[in-house]
Every structure is written in structure tokens, then in C-alpha cells.
């Protein structure tokens, strides 16, 4: 019998939180599919602290945070299969079932069927090739997450003299980590005029160790045949183009890349789910349901988060909504409003809201397109202003989470718009 009510693809923080919530809501017939040999996903290599302040009101390390959820999964008797990778998700013709093809040593290649599927596959790092950095291709160039895995999980010593390109959070964390491992981190170069990492990580991982953050700088050449010998870093102009004559040579044996994360949506695309080009994740409703009925998405595969606490919260909602879909169905009769990203807003999750399915509290999450100081965040529907919130500073690296009560939304007629108001504050 390979039939389930709910299959959850991914046993990281998103998948575990979704499973726990679905089980609590009464779905007993569920299964988590995890490709790694342990539950927890990327948290297992994040051995630093700072996780769980929202969820558990205390500071945990990544593995500790993962363990809390893994324990909930085990205590609730939720089945999970490790070393099991999903190869395809497809709609079954003439049925509301979904076919999920998996591979593992135990099962071989097998197709499982489920009424609902939660996509929780996480994201991957943007590799060097996609950054188009010219130069040679020597040993010693790693994405920051790969280096983190090698150092923290494999105990490898990967280098002594380090340059980091990109100020994403993993890069910042690795600047500190490499320093603690005895390496010297010469600089963190960031193409944009602002960091793409959290403020607290810049303070705790760079400033505390005297590591310079070079804003509006990038790596323009990589030297070394078999082993990395050094990189050239140049200043960039307002169009992010390197400025002639500003380049400086940094001898190094290690270059870490922390230049963005990409939701890993190959399965999603294969399932025929509509993708939002702004997030590279699925386009979802208030219920976190994708364009394919009964297929939900949450966590970093939906949009890249900066805090795991937000992932857990969002994924629990996906789990509850999947339970609702399985048990009573999602109301499709009511009006659906688009949620549009206006001035200064790069995207919103969800991108549509169906009024019959509102929760008592409804989240709209977004990121801004640049740095904004002393502005207002506004949510409106036609002439109606639903929310106005002052903010001293908004940066692209920090996701904004707005909560709108059901009674504010339930009688709306017009599409919703989220935007940043810069003048007249």
C-alpha cells in the first residue's frame, strides 16, 4: 500500500514543522521523505547559536533547534524515511491524487500516492558559474555553505587565507567560523552598496573580529592553476560595473561565495506548479497552496527566509492548511484578491488571498528592493487603507512580516497592494 493522505518532501525545519502541525490537526496517514541520513536539513551544519528566539524564546544552535523538532516528530509517531530522494511529483490524470516517485536503497524506485503534498525542499547556493566571475578554476573556491559543511560536519581544514565574496548570512557566519579555525579572513566583498546579511551577523561575525566589509566591491579575477593563489577585487560603480584602475590583489588560498540562495524548485516545476519569477518559488495563496490543488509549499523552497523561526511558523500553517484540504476541502467559491507588490516591495507571499479561507490572523511577508529609512509600510485595497506602519529602517536582507486580522480583509472588493511610502511621513 503506497497510499497516503499527506506526503511531505523534505525533513528540514520546514518539513518537520509542517508534519507536526498536520499531525496535530488530525492527519495520521502522513510520511516525511528526507534525502539526507538525518532529519534537520541545513540546520545540522549551522553549529552557531541564534536560532529559536521567536519559537522557543531562547537561543539555540542549529542542531539543537533541529533536534527540538525532530523530537516532536518522533514523539508524535510521525513516520519519516531517510536517504530517500524524491525524483518526481506529478498530478494523476482523472483524480485529485498526486504521484510521488521516490528512490532509496530500501524501496528502490517506487511511486507513492497522496491526496496532498507539501513541498519543503529548501534552497541551494548560487554557484560560481552562475556569477560569471572570470579567471581560472582552481581548488579553493567554495560556496559558503559547502565550506560550512566541510568544516563543521567533516572536520576538514580548508584554508588559511580567506576572501569572501558576498555578504549573505552564511558568508558572514563563515567569516567568523574560519577565523575561529585559525584562518585569516582578509575581506568580505559585497557588490551592492548594502549587505545582504542580517545586521546582527555583521556586528557579531565581522566587526567583532576586525574583518573589513567592502561594500560596492566585487571579485573581478581569480588566479591560480591547480590551487587558488589570489583574487582581484575592484570597486563597482552605481550600475555594479567594476571601475577601471580600482582593482587590488588579495593573495588567498580560499574564496568563499555567499552570493544568494535559490529555492530548489525542480520538482515543483515538474509538477506543473506556477512559479513566481520574483522569488523563484511557487506562487501561493493565503493557504500556502500552489497553483496545483492540494500541493502546498513552505520554507526556503517557497521564498528564502533569514530566520528559521519564520520558516517554522509558515510551515506549520502549510501543515494546517494541508490538513484542512484533506479533511474538509478548501473553499474555492469565494472571491480571490491579488496581493500586489507596489513601490519598494520586491514580492509578497502570498500573492493572492481567497476571502473564504482567511485565518483569524493572516500573514503577508515581503522584502524591500533597497534600503529605506524613515518610511511607512502601507497595505491598501482600492481607496481603503488596511495597515500603515512606520519604520525607521528597512533593508532587503530582513524579511518583513505583516499580520492582518480577518475582519480587516473579509469584506474587501479590490486587489490588495503593499508598498513603501517615502514622502510625507
Amino acid at each position, binding site marked *: 500500500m503506497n497510499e497516503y493522505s499527506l506526503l511531505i518532501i523534505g525533513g528540514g525545519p520546514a518539513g518537520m514543522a509542517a508534519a507536526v502541525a498536520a499531525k496535530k490537526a488530525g492527519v495520521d496517514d502522513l510520511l516525511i521523505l528526507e*534525502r539526507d541520513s538525518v532529519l534537520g536539513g541545513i540546520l545540522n551544519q549551522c553549529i552557531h547559536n541564534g536560532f529559536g528566539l521567536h519559537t522557543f524564546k531562547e537561543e539555540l544552535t542549529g542542531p539543537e533547534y533541529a533536534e527540538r523538532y525532530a523530537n516532536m516528530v518522533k514523539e508524535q509517531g510521525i513516520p519519516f524515511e531517510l*536517504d530517500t*530522494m524524491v*525524483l518526481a511529483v506529478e498530478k494523476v490524470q482523472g483524480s485529485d491524487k498526486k504521484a510521488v516517485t521516490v*528512490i*532509496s*536503497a*530500501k*524501496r*528502490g*524506485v517506487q511511486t507513492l500516492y497522496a491526496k496532498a503534498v507539501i513541498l519543503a525542499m529548501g534552497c*541551494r*547556493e548560487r*554557484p*560560481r*558559474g*552562475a556569477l*560569471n566571475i*572570470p*579567471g*581560472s*578554476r*582552481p*581548488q579553493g573556491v567554495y*560556496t559558503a*555553505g*559547502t565550506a560550512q*559543511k*566541510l568544516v563543521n*560536519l*567533516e*572536520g*576538514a*581544514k*580548508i584554508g588559511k587565507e580567506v576572501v569572501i565574496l558576498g555578504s549573505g548570512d552564511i558568508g558572514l557566519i563563515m567569516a567568523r567560523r574560519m577565523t575561529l579555525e585559525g584562518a585569516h579572513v582578509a575581506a568580505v566583498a559585497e557588490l551592492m552598496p548594502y549587505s545582504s546579511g542580517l545586521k546582527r551577523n555583521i556586528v557579531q561575525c565581522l566587526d567583532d573580529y576586525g574583518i573589513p566589509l567592502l561594500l560596492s566591491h566585487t571579485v*573581478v*579575477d*581569480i588566479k591560480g*592553476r*591547480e*590551487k587558488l593563489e589570489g583574487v582581484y577585487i575592484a570597486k563597482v560603480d552605481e550600475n555594479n560595473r567594476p571601475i577601471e584602475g580600482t582593482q587590488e590583489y588579495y593573495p588567498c588560498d580560499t574564496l568563499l561565495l555567499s552570493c544568494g540562495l535559490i529555492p*530548489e524548485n*525542480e520538482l515543483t516545476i515538474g509538477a506543473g506548479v506556477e512559479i513566481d519569477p520574483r522569488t523563484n518559488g511557487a506562487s501561493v495563496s493565503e493557504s500556502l497552496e500552489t497553483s496545483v490543488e492540494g500541493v502546498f509549499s513552505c520554507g526556503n523552497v517557497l521564498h528564502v527566509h533569514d530566520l528559521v523561526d519564520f520558516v517554522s511558523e509558515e510551515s506549520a500553517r502549510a501543515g494546517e492548511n494541508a490538513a484542512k484540504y484533506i479533511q474538509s476541502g478548501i473553499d474555492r467559491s469565494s472571491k480571490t484578491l491579488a496581493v500586489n507588490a507596489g513601490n519598494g516591495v520586491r514580492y509578497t507571499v502570498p500573492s493572492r488571498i481567497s476571502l473564504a479561507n482567511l485565518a483569524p490572523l493572516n500573514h503577508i511577508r515581503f522584502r524591500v528592493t533597497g534600503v529605506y529609512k524613515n518610511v511607512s509600510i502601507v497595505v491598501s485595497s482600492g481607496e481603503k487603507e488596511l495597515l500603515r506602519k512606520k519604520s525607521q529602517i528597512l533593508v532587503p536582507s530582513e524579511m518583513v512580516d505583516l499580520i492582518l486580522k480577518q475582519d480587516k480583509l473579509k469584506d474587501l472588493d479590490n486587489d490588495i497592494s503593499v508598498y513603501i511610502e517615502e514622502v510625507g511621513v
Partner: protein
Amino acid sequence: MYDVLIIGAGVVGCAAAMELSKYKLKVCVAEKESDVCEGTSKANSAIIHAGFDAKEGTLKAKLNVLGSQMMPELAKKLDFAYKRNGAMVLCFDKADLPKLDELEQRARNNGVDGVRVVTGDEARKLEPSLSDEVCGALVAETSGIVCPFEMTLAFAENALQNGVDFKLSTLVTGIDKNENGFTVHTSRGDIQTKVIINAAGVYADKIHAMVSSKPLGITPRRGEYLLMDKAAGSLVSRTIFQLPTKMGKGILVTPTVHGNLLAGPTAENIDDKDNVSTTKNGLDEVKAKSALSVKNIPFGKVITSFTGLRAVGDTGDFIIAQSDVKGFINAAGIESPGLSSAPAIAQYLCEIVGQILPLETNTDYIGTRKGITHFTALSKDEQNELIKREPAYGKIVCRCETVTEGEILDAINRPLGATTLDGVKRRTRAGMGRCQAGFCSPTTMSLIAKKLGIKIQDVRKSGVYSTQRRQDDE
């Protein structure tokens, strides 16, 4: 004492080794890198040309056409990926249309079948993504695409199973001529041989100069490429060439045999034989010129860029002949269409060896070789049978290319196995996908480390470090 020592384990050296193993000869291949296929053979367009491009009467024309004809059967017998996808040469300027007819005529003279000239509209009907500027095209049915790593490995492994010795990480430092043949000095001791085949790619001039005072010029010509995600792989089905334009020699756009999209190469003569860097200008040129042929190439889906060096000889043709020094045979200046010609070059080299040494057929020659089982190429039933037998095939290591642990172990454990990350990548495609080894490299590294008995941090991306370390420890 060897009968023949081949210097260089690129596609030409390995093909020659395979061909010579069909005879009762003691053959050795010496390669300075730690793996086969580490130079020009690993970074090129991976095209098996039909043979309409090279001038009539040249070795290039003769050996290209022959090589292309040999390829389908070789691919089957030696188990490497090859596909006859066809090619087109595009014309963008009405004034250049007669050049297409010239190419068609040349194809006929060279003995290439399946070539015809079509109009711009007909070309767009065959390949809907072609640019509106295309006003005519030559279509060549017999052009193909190949996996150059697999092909070189297939030749090498077939040579190995038929008794050829491979000495890797072995740099030739000098050659002495003596009455019996040659003493070849290497970084790992001397090798005695009666005959030498110089298949040293961009270094063929240096090797030649070790025995001969006659000049042989080899210029490294840098070619830069962009490789795009499989999501872009079906933009064109044929290999799309350009007639040379005012902007210079054209750039090709092609699907790869594994379903990616490849654009390149640039052509720039340089001095440094080791300079395989990419440059901003070069990659910009690839983008600009490839966009002339094909509309909407998704450059946002580039997964990697790379540079190859072609070994351009000073004669304009392949230099394949016994040199002024008896017993020293050059296989030099093997630029395009070298990959296509390799099996024919090997036969030609055998004929030359036969003029020096007696060739006696090796009746024990094994004519087939089984490559690494590529899990994704199997049917579901075959996959399940394999997993039941070998559970390691049930574990996916490389997510992007769906490569199993079983395949990686095979790549590491088989004779002439991989000792570096790049070696595993070329044999299995693990790490060749969109994440470019971000997820799988720690696992692959630990599998290599275990096999070699070294620490994970000593596993190298490429080069001699891994094997060096192993031998130093022994």
C-alpha cells in the same frame, strides 16, 4: 623496453593506445596530469563534425570524414554517449550566400553525405529559435555531439584492458636518442622505448624540441565557453554554426549530448600554455555572437563558464608524421576537428608505426568496453534490479544530475579510476549540474578520501595532489 611510448593521454593519445593494442606491441602512455583527458580534450565544443569544413586534400578533411563515419559503431562498442543531431551553418548576409554553396561543394568533394542548402525560412522551420536575420543555411545531417570525457576514457579503458600501461602524474623532462630507440626521462624515472608518439597537445612543440632541432610551432588558441542549464538544452536541436562574418570567425550554439546548451568558443592566440582562465571580454563576446544565431538564449541560466586551449600547428593542417628523428612520430597541431578525427588519427598513426616496427595482430584483442552504468539511463525495472543487487545505487549523491553513490564508487574503484573531484565529475556527471557540486562535493570527497586512505581536506579538485599524497604516504 616498450615498443611504443605515447606522450599525452588526451583523446589522440588514448585513441592511439587503443589502436596499437590491437597488435602485439608493448605500449605505454605517459601523462603529466593525474587523469586522462586533462587538456584540450576536456574543454572543447564536443562536436563530431561532419567534415564539410576542412579544405579538400588535407589530413584534416580526410581524417575528419573517416572519424565521423567510425563514430556510431565505436560509441556502441565502447559505450560512450554520442548522438547524430545534425548541424547548420547560418548565413546572415545575402552577399555571403554563395559561401554556403561553396561549403556544399566542399562537402561533396570531401565525401560527406546528407548536406544541403536551405533558405532562411526553411532553416527557421527546422529550428524555430533561429534569429530572423538568418537568410540561408547549410544543413548537415551527419554532424554529431559526443561526451569528450567518456570518449577519451572509453579509448583509455579499452587500451588498458588490452594490456597498455598508463603512467599518470608522469611528466616527461627529457629524451635521449640511442641505438635501440629512446630513453625518456620523466618525473618518475626513465622509460625505454623503441618508438615515441608525441601527442602532447599544446606542449607537443616542447616534446618535439627534446629530440629534434627542426622547428615545430604550436600556438595555444584560447576558446571560452558558456554552459547553460538543462532547462535551456532544447532551445535548438542541431549544432548551429555561423559563416564567418565581419566580426570574425563565428561562435556555435549547440545542445550537449547530456542535454545542456553550450555556446562558444572565442578564438584568441596566447603564449601561456597553462592559461585556461575565462575573461570578461571573452564571455561577453560569446554572448553577443551567439545571440546573432539564436533568439532568447537564457544567459541567466549559465551554470558555468570554461576555457579550452586548442593546439594550433604552424602548417594549417594536422602534423602527423615521423619526424626527422627516426622512431619519433608527431601527432601535433591537433586542433578542430581533432576530436572528430581522433579514431582515424589513431589508425593513421598505426600505419606510420607499421613502417618502423612489424605489426602482428593481437588475436586476444577485446573490442568492447563497458562504461559506468548511468543510473538515469536505465528503465525502472533495471534500476530496481540494480538497487536490489547493489544498494549504493539507491542513494542519490548528486541531486542535480541524479547520480547515485553506486556510480561514484564505480568511477573511483574501476581501473584508471578517478582520484579527484573533477575525475569523478567527468566520469559520472556528479557535480556537473546546476548547483555545480555545492551539495555533493563533501560526499564525493569523503568517498575518494576513503578509497585513497587520505584526509578529506587532501582530496583535490584536480591535479596531482590526491595521487601524489597517496604515493608519498606509501
